[in-house]
């Protein structure tokens, strides 16, 4: 593209070619610097800790990546993971977005092909920072298409360091979002390009990029809804053009076919409501084009406009009605629960506690907008205003993006991530336009040079002429303003304004660095505590306990823990877990929640039913770590209550004042439940604080209410150095009676208690009888 530009400029004036070369050199240098700074600012966690995979989900991604590199892509697609969801297992290939694993697997394969024996872990750890550099480039390209190169550079610089994005892309956070934001922005860039040019090439590229996005993240739904909405809006605004028709039709069809190649997505694009906007708009666009064609042929007919207008409305109503009908008849799945929760924030709280129990699914507070975006959140409306004032096809897009992303970011803190690029772009537009006005020292001095400066200011891609023309009227307006202001806009004022802006940007950089360093760079599997003399002490309890499990439990041991730790146990301990962070089976999770919330005897029945060998709980009472299982316990109770309302009642875990407390005023049911006992076993003998009695819980700052109890069916297997992770072994049934009696007793108890039927042991003992019978009968017949 640049070559073409150079050529054209050659034809125009020979003198400008060298300045254009210089300009592109500077642009390239700035972009490289932006990429590098984006990469470096994400390395805090590596410098402070080590090159390690962070948090929860990345551990699963890492494990599957390792599996893929070891066993190949097709085995990965067919992988049945028996370490998860015991006894159900999980078909990983069909329940995962493989883009992330394939990306790092490809990089790994490439490096090994050229004999660079880099470990897959390093690739996984550094993938997110590398892709954030690419995101900066994609943002530059997108902003360049939307406004100007200058704004593009600003936007690239903003996105490279904005905490809203770096929160999910620091080194080690090996998650889908790490590559998905790049794919998102790049798809948007290609989309803008294709509607500007109307070329098949660009819209096919858009579809390919969309395919990559689909393979990487569930957030692809955002693209497949936003682009049709954009098209729909353009139609409403009367901005229909053949370019639009070509690019959307090609994008939709190719994108649809490609996205259905991902096993996890499958037939969803044609069968779920989330994708119906795209299909509807596609049909509408075809109809519109058809009528437009007829309209051009039948100009002489009277009132043709109203007829067509009415027809279009009828068509859209028909399309809508068909979608509704198909939804009712079950051909199209209705909106999923997660989607509902985006529209009605209280929906999840009422119906799906498991979604709302995740902190990143909570509604966003106002402070976090500032926390994550700082200066940009103030500039963002300004940029949007500039776009509204100077509307064209692609600016409609960024405005729609801004509106939707703002809404979603407000609903769910996690979706702050999709808002950030849009905020960066609009803020960059605002800043660029302001600086065009103030930082142009020459224009105030020499009036004759003025016109050149105008043309540089709006240095939109030269070949986009129609946009240029759209701008014409605007330029002229500006000219008015500028001439009027020229009297008081002395260079001094300009310098002051520019200095102020520069200082704000500096503050922004300081803020971003600080936030990234303090808030977003902790791996969360390694904690840090500061001693009284200020030295750093690393609390490595998680890995200590997980590694203990890996080394010192039987290979097929089954570990029961709350689902948060499922991925980490599978990843670090390589042991079977009952539930994990892929919360697809609510009733299984509720069963684990029920076991945790029941008393020991009841819990033991559930645990033997589920073949549990070890139980793992997280307990922060010794060092004052607040994210432990006692604090999460109410969610377990709620989720269990959702499935077993007869056995578990949330109110039972509150004391008389309707409070959830672990001190003396706590409810006796709480004191007897498995979770309490596992967390506080022998804690009553420990002095955590010299000024406090024994058994003082430092997280909740109370002395626990129930001490000195014994465990009947489980025994302590391991407790980490700071007691954060406690692992218990489920005792096998003790030999109480002679073998002869045992059979009788068990069979009699089976008939008495209906629950015992599910008991693994009972079933096994019964089996021989049944088998004998069938065999004999079969022989006779």
């Amino acid at each position, binding site marked *: 593209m640049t070559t073409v530009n150079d050529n054209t400029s050659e034809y125009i004036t020979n003198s400008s070619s060298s300045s254009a070369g210089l300009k592109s050199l500077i642009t390239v240098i700035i972009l490289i610097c932006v990429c590098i700074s984006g990469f470096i600012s994400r390395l805090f966690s590596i410098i402070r800790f080590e090159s390690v995979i962070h948090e929860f989900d990345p551990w699963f991604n890492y494990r599957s990546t390792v599996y893929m590199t070891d066993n190949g892509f097709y085995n990965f697609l067919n992988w049945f993971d028996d370490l998860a969801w015991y006894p159900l297992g999980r078909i990983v290939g069909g329940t995962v977005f493989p883009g992330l694993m394939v990306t790092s697997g490809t990089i790994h394969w490439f490096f090994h092909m050229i*004999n660079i024996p880099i470990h897959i872990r390093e690739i996984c750890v550094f993938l997110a920072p590398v892709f954030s550099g690419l995101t900066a480039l994609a943002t530059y390209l997108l902003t360049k298409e939307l406004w100007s190169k200058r704004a593009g550079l600003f936007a690239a610089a903003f996105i490279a360091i904005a905490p809203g994005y770096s929160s999910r892309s620091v080194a080690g956070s090996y998650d889908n979002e790490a590559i998905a934001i790049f794919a998102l922005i790049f798809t948007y860039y290609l989309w803008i390009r294709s509607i500007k040019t109307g070329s098949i090439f660009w819209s096919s590229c858009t579809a390919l990029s969309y395919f990559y996005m689909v393979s990487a993240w569930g957030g692809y739904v955002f693209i497949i809804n936003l682009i049709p909405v954009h098209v729909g809006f353009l139609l409403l605004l009367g901005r229909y053009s053949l370019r639009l028709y070509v690019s959307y039709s090609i994008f939709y069809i190719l994108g649809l076919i490609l996205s259905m190649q991902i096993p996890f997505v499958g037939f969803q694009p044609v069968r779920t409501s989330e994708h119906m906007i795209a299909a509807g708009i596609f049909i509408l666009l075809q109809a519109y084009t058809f009528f437009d064609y007829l309209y051009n042929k039948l100009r002489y007919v009277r009132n043709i406009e109203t007829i067509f207008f009415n027809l279009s409305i009828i068509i859209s109503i028909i399309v809508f009605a068909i979608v509704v009908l198909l939804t009712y008849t079950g051909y199209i799945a209705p909106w999923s629960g997660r989607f509902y929760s985006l529209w009605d924030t209280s929906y999840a709280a009422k119906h799906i506690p498991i979604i709302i129990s995740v902190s990143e699914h909570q509604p966003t507070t106002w402070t976090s907008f500032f926390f994550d975006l700082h200066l940009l959140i103030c500039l963002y409306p300004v940029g949007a205003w500039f776009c509204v004032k100077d509307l064209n096809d692609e600016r409609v897009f960024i405005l729609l993006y801004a509106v939707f992303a703002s809404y979603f970011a407000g609903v769910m803190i996690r979706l702050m991530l999709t808002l950030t690029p849009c905020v960066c772009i609009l803020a960059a537009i605002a800043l660029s336009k302001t600086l065009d006005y103030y930082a142009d020292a020459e224009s105030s001095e020499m009036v004759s040079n003025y016109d050149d400066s105008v043309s540089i200011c709006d240095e939109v891609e030269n070949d986009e002429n129609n946009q240029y*023309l759209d701008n014409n009227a605007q330029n002229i307006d500006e000219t008015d303003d500028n001439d009027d202001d020229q009297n008081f806009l002395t260079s001094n004022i300009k310098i002051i304004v520019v200095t102020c802006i520069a200082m704000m940007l500096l503050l922004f950089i300081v803020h971003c660095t600080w936030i990234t360093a303090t808030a977003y760079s902790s791996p969360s599997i390694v904690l840090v505590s500061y001693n009284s003399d200020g030295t750093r002490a690393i609390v490595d309890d998680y890995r200590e306990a997980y590694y203990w499990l*890996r*080394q010192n439990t039987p290979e097929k041991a089954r570990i029961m823990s709350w689902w948060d730790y499922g991925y980490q146990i599978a990843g670090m301990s390589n042991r079977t877990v009952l539930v994990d962070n892929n919360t697809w089976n609510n009733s299984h999770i509720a069963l684990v929640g029920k076991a945790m919330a029941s008393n020991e005897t009841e819990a033991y029945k559930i645990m033997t039913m589920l073949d549990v060998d070890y139980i793992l709980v997280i307990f922060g009472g010794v060092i004052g770590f607040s994210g432990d299982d006692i604090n999460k316990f109410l969610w377990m109770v709620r989720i269990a209550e959702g499935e077993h309302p007869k056995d578990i009642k949330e109110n039972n875990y509150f004391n008389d004042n309707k409070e959830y407390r672990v001190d003396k005023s706590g409810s006796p049911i709480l004191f007897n439940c498995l979770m309490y006992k596992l967390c506080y076993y022998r804690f009553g003998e420990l002095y955590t604080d010299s000024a406090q009695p024994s058994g003082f819980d430092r997280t909740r700052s109370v002395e626990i209410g129930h001490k000195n109890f014994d465990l009947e069916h489980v025994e302590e297997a391991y407790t980490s150095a700071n007691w954060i992770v406690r692992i218990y072994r489920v005792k096998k049934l003790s030999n109480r009676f002679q073998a002869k009696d045992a059979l009788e007793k068990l069979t009699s108890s089976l008939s008495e208690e209906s629950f015992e039927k599910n008991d693994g042991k009972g079933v096994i003992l019964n089996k021989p009888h049944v088998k004998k019978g069938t065999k004999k009968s079969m022989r006779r017949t």
Partner: protein
Amino acid sequence: MGQEQEHLVNTKVERTLDLVSHLPKEIISVTFENRGTKSARYYDYCVEPQHVNDVGYVGAIVRGKNSGDQTNLPIKQETTDKTKGTIYRIELPNDLRSSQTITLEIEVVHINALRLLPTEIVQHERQLVLYKTNAYYYSKYSTQTQKTIVTLPTDRAESYTQAPKPVAKNEQTITYGPYENVAALTRNEISLHYENNNPFLTVNNMKRWIEVSHWGNIAVEETIEMYHSGAKLKGPFSRLDFQRQQNSYSAVKTFKTSLPAAAKDIYYRDEIGNVSTSSVREMHDQVEIEIRPRFPLYGGWNTYYVLGYNVPSYQYLFNKGNQYVLKMRLIDHVYDDQLLEQVTIKIVLPEYVHNIEFYPSMHDTDIKRLRNEKHYTYLDTIGRSVIVITKRNALFQHIQDFEIHYTFDKIMLLHEPMLIIFSLFGLFCFVIILNRLNFSINHEENNEIRIRIKGIWNQLMEHNIKRTSFYQKLDELLNTFKTNKDLKIYNEQRKKFENELKRIEQNFNNLQTKIKADSVETAEKIAEFQQLDAEQRKITQLLCGNTEKLVNGKIKKQAHGDEEQNLRLKIRDINTRISTILNQY
């Protein structure tokens, strides 16, 4: 040869049995005399049949004279006899002539010789072991006087065999003997049941990776699978008791590894990351690293870790011309009293090395060399030769140097930098050529014309912007003129603007003539555009005249307003037409 040996007699034997660690160690100081006529070449050390498989190491030195020269004597293991046991034939430094005496110090380390009794203990219990040995020095020669001194780790012994007398116990030591005139191959089993809480660490698998670089570095990485081979932990592990009562006697919390003094860039990690609990102490002759596994090791618990470091190669790699010699330790210190059950050593030599010869230490008799492997790493093309060596039951005493001799052409050092230079060069050339090629499916000439037309249009656009801005300015001038009625400035400015407009018009003409050759269509469009422009100019002039008239008071304000409205409508019409022309493109 065997015959002559029969004439040897052990005159004095002092046996020290060190039971402190988990590897019972015997140091036997034997003084013997040649009572035969022929001179003796060898001394045979025998191991009882039931202990044949226990022996991890046998070493012998000459004691007494010139104690500075304490080289190990060569020892050869003879065939095993079911009744007599194994014979280790020690080669004497020089022939022992008739009626001469010599004192040898034989060191024997037994592995897996301790029986745990009980085999399972709870967390706070002490670990008890049972050791069975011979009360007498087992020899194929008769022994005149002998004594066995047993050292226990603590003074607590559950039981020990009290016979044959005399037996004396003094705190940690138990003395058996002295016994006089014991016949050859006499056995008298004694058993000792005592407390031993010293670390029962055993490495069941160790991989040692040595990567030699001619750029001045040798990287060493040891992958260690380790378990606590003591009594198994029974029942729960309580962190509270572990922290508060300090009574976990048998648990291994930490141990020390010595690395070479030049070791740097040390890392200690496992499958899930860096193990943060370790400390390094640099001393003048070694680097001591205190290794603390993630969790304390109780009986039966396993752990696994990787320990790596770099050492500068000048200490280990020597060369003369193209001939290189690598001299390093085959295995290194892992912990005191180490027992490495299975060791695999892989030595990676640089690329393009040939004539590789491997020389193990003289005393390392039981190592096995496997087939060479290939290893590919940074910038490799043909792969590096890897020498693979395995060894079983390596002890502290087996830390010995090996030597590898090989030939390497120094010119090949340039291979890797050249590889980078040429691949980058090739890449740049490729890009240069790629840039020069045209992959467009459009016809070349058309393309050029298209670009040219595009350029013209761009210029047209630019001029158009200028043009409109001048009209705008002119308009404004009129407005100001209307209010301040300054004819002089007005005329001056107007003339200037009109001149500018004329110049732009000229430009349009130029563009039109330029494009005519390429595309008539475009030229026509430009002509149309120009026509419109001329019209606009006319109207603007009318507008100016009108305003002048107003200022001079020649027409009324009302009439002027109407006229202006009319003209402006026309201008707007022209403007839309111009933009439709330009939009067509």
